[in-house]
């Protein structure tokens, strides 16, 4: 059934054939090239390991962002309770950015998970096919004349070869994808470095005025709380709100 297939499938088939041609004669590889098979399977394992590494990295980024979302939310609440809508808005804006990033990271992690499962599954399939070939070859040799056997064995070898080439293609694709995600991950890191998702109470360089004010409100609220507690413990002042200065920079 040569020449079968539409334009998409023809291109894919040509790609697979090209990978096959680049490899050595599959029947030779299968017959004598145990080393080659081991190499191939190691390649698959490496491909899978790369996917897992990328996945872990994205998961860590995602955890960090989750924490930032919680912190920013808390800060927004504090700001609201202090009547500082402007600060609350700033915190919520950052929270939104962090949440959007988080969603896209989660999608990518899921994608990588699927890819990892698929590659693992395919690796198993290929191993099974290689084993089947070893057995089949002996059966064919016993059943057919030498000339016929050669044709049949070479057909079977092409079947396994296609499986190998297709797995090679899948690994290439997985590597391209993880490469893209790495680039994307770097972009997120740059956003982080620029302070886009920063905990607004973090003290250090690069803080803007909004950061400082929010930090002060947070600290101020904590001081108020502690002071109320102390007053209550000492039995003085009752439930009155302590008249504490907001801070010198206000």
């Amino acid at each position, binding site marked *: 059934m040569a020449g*079968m297939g539409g334009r*998409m499938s023809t291109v894919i088939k040509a790609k697979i054939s090209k990978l096959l041609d680049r490899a050595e004669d599959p029947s030779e590889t299968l017959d004598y090239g145990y080393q080659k098979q081991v190499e191939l399977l190691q390649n698959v394992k490496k491909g899978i390991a790369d996917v897992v590494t990328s996945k872990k990295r994205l998961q860590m980024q995602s955890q960090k962002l989750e924490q930032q979302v919680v912190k920013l939310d808390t800060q927004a609440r504090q700001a609201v309770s202090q009547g500082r809508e402007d600060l609350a808005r700033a915190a919520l804006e950052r929270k939104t950015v962090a949440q959007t990033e988080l969603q896209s990271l989660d999608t990518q992690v899921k994608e990588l998970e699927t890819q990892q499962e698929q590659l693992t599954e395919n690796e198993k399939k290929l191993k*099974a096919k290689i084993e089947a*070939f070893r057995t089949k070859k002996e059966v064919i040799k016993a059943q057919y004349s030498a000339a016929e056997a050669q044709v049949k064995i070479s057909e079977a070898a092409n*079947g396994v070869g296609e499986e190998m080439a297709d797995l090679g293609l899948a690994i290439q*694709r997985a590597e391209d994808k993880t490469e893209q995600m790495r680039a994307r991950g770097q972009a997120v890191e740059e956003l982080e470095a620029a302070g886009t998702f920063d905990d607004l109470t973090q003290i250090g360089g690069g803080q803007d005025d909004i950061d400082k004010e929010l930090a002060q409100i947070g600290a101020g609220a904590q001081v108020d709380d502690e002071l109320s507690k102390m007053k209550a413990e000492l039995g003085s002042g009752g439930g009155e709100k302590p008249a504490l200065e907001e801070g010198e920079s206000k």
Partner: protein
Amino acid sequence: MIVRISGEGQFTLPDDDASRLNELDNEAVAAVEGGDEAKFAELWAQMLALVEKDGTELGADELEESDVILPPRDVTFAEAAGEFTGEGLIPD
């Protein structure tokens, strides 16, 4: 006939499905060329559905070359545009 979904596996389909699959394939490429992402997605889903409905997965001990090899299930519109149209018809 034997159809492979790249990155997934091989399926045996009745030979009668060949022309339908072929037709859908060419329509899908035409959709890509026309920049119609929704249409492409729909046609691609139809192709997969056809393989799933009529196909039987080949056993691990069956060593056959495929008559038709389809792209990976999660092929994107962008990939299709890059690979299956115009210049992309000449594989790299």
